[in-house]
């Protein structure tokens, strides 16, 4: 089938933002992802003021199932040598149940949302900024500067950040701040390569030559022309990196390298691992949250990529 171009006609008088917003709107999945993320942010910001303290421990109320579920708890009385089983029902007081220490699941998940989003945003922020600067400068300068920067990138790519993390945990003890830093400082390499490749192709575009012909300095060309034009790529890469970062933190917590003092979803999941038989919700709920969050960011990222690509017929 032959693709027919119907002349690039656009409605008049739209700003750039509106133009892209129209295109994103057409992708239902991306919109759903965006809605979920907005919801999550709202939760993370407002939630902690509304729910109880996630770290509160109350052994009387341990292992209560979520609303509308019923579970059985058995207690063994040493003195009477009797196993009594009783039914526990979920209550509205703890709509998502409690964990083995009696902490409210809802409160913890909301706190966890805050943590995961912060981790995602900060670590991604560090990685993207580093990656963009290195990528653009490398492409623009070319020659030996490009060579050096790219070899450095190669080395960083092969760096076993996992071992670095183990080492840090061993020396300093587990800390969320360190995790964020390590992820950020090692995660920029992919971005650097993509941005460099995009910048290289932009560098030969006529409007860059035109700017130089007008007398623009290298500085101006990079900041006023190259970076804004890779901005869309940056946004897409950031959106698609965030889920990876969130999962990385969750995975680290799951294997015990996380910061146990912070109720991130990974930590909650890890704690629920041991009690799957009796309180499966402690592991499943954060798992579902992670799943939905990653999906949402991926849908949004894909939608953004399609919207920003001038060749896709939207």
């Amino acid at each position, binding site marked *: 089938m032959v693709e027919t171009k119907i002349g*690039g006609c*656009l409605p*008049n*008088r*739209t*700003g*750039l933002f509106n*133009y892209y917003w129209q295109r994103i709107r057409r992708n239902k999945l991306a919109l759903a992802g965006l809605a979920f993320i907005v919801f999550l942010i709202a939760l993370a910001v407002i939630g902690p003021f509304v729910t109880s303290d996630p770290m509160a421990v109350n052994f009387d109320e341990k292992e209560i199932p979520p609303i509308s579920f019923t579970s059985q708890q058995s207690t063994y009385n040493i003195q009477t040598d009797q196993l009594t089983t009783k039914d526990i029902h979920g209550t509205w007081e703890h709509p998502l149940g409690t964990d083995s220490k009696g902490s409210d699941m809802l409160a913890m998940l909301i706190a966890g949302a805050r943590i995961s989003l912060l981790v995602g945003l900060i670590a991604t922020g560090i990685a993207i900024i580093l990656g963009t600067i290195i990528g653009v400068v490398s492409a623009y300068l070319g020659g030996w500067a490009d060579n050096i920067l790219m070899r450095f990138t190669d080395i960083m790519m092969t760096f076993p950040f996992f071992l670095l993390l183990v080492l840090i945990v061993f020396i300093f003890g587990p800390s969320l701040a360190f995790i964020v830093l390590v992820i950020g400082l090692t995660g920029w390499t992919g971005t650097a390569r993509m941005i460099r490749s995009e910048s290289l192709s932009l560098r030969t*575009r*006529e*409007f860059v*030559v*035109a*700017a*130089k*012909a*007008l*007398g*623009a*300095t290298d500085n*101006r060309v990079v900041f006023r*022309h190259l970076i*804004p*034009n890779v*901005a869309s790529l940056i946004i897409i890469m950031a959106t698609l990196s965030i889920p990876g970062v969130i999962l990385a933190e969750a995975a680290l917590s799951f294997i015990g390298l996380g910061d146990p003092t912070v109720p991130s979803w990974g930590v909650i999941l890890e704690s629920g691992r041991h009690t799957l038989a009796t309180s499966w919700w402690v592991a499943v709920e954060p798992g579902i949250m992670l799943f939905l969050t990653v999906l949402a960011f991926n849908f949004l990222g894909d939608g953004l990529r399609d919207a920003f690509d001038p060749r896709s017929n939207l």
Partner: protein
Amino acid sequence: MKSEMNHNLLQLADLKKYYPVTAGLFSRHVGDIKAVDGVTLDVRESEIVGLVGESGCGKSTLARTIPRLEEPTSGKIIYNGNDIARLNKKELSQIRREIQLIFQDPDASLDPRMTVGDSIEEPLVIHHIGDSRERADRVAQLMEQVGLEAGQAGMYPHEFSGGQKQRVGIARALAMNPRLIIADEPVSALDVSIQAQILNLMMDIREKFGLAYLFIAHDLSVIRHMANRVAIMYLGKIVELADKNDLFDSPLHPYTEALLSAVPSFKPKDKDRILLRGDVPSPLNPPPGCHFHPRCHRVMPICSKVKPKQKEVAEGHLVSCHLYK
């Protein structure tokens, strides 16, 4: 109008631009792409010199080498008496105000993320001219001069048609009051009816501001309309240079003859069309002797051995061909 009265604005003396080709693990220098291979050409004040050639002849490279967007490999670029090739960055920046470029593809030559007003204003910002109010006034003035409405300054390139985008490019080039504009195929990407509008615009501003053009095109009928003198380029060299009428009425170089006879036209041809054999050779390995000899319909034995020198055969009519001694 014979333009010898005006003095030389731009003089190119044996200008060369080679791109080295490397091969192997240690990037050995194995050859050169001789994009511009010894061009001697001049442009006088207020004149339009047309430069014609097919793809691969080096005309775009020449367009970029003159304002030193590409560094020349050797030769002189004398603008108003100074050799630009020797200037430092600061002095070059001054010159850049006087020599401007207009590009072929109106889509690609404007930054899609800047409003057209910002694009036109950019040269003024770069050279610190005026304050922001004065610049805004100048942008409005320039837009009107090229036939656009000043109110459209806040719009983005994708909201304009091809012809309008080209007008923006012209406005941008005019912002610094240049004296020489190098136009690299400015109308090739436009529809015929729009092409006529843009050509008229270019003539109007030339009259108004006393500009000189180096007008590069592959369409001979456009060149015939616009230029005062015409240069024909083949594989990095100028093979013929003459006043327009002399060139079109009595072409001397066999390549010029072939080009002219190849143009589809309304009037029936008196002679049979000359069809060139083969394709344009690669600038990496140009044929020995005269670059054109393998395809030449008037080739002689000497042509494959010796490079012809540029000779003035009639007043103002220069050719590089062994047929003329």
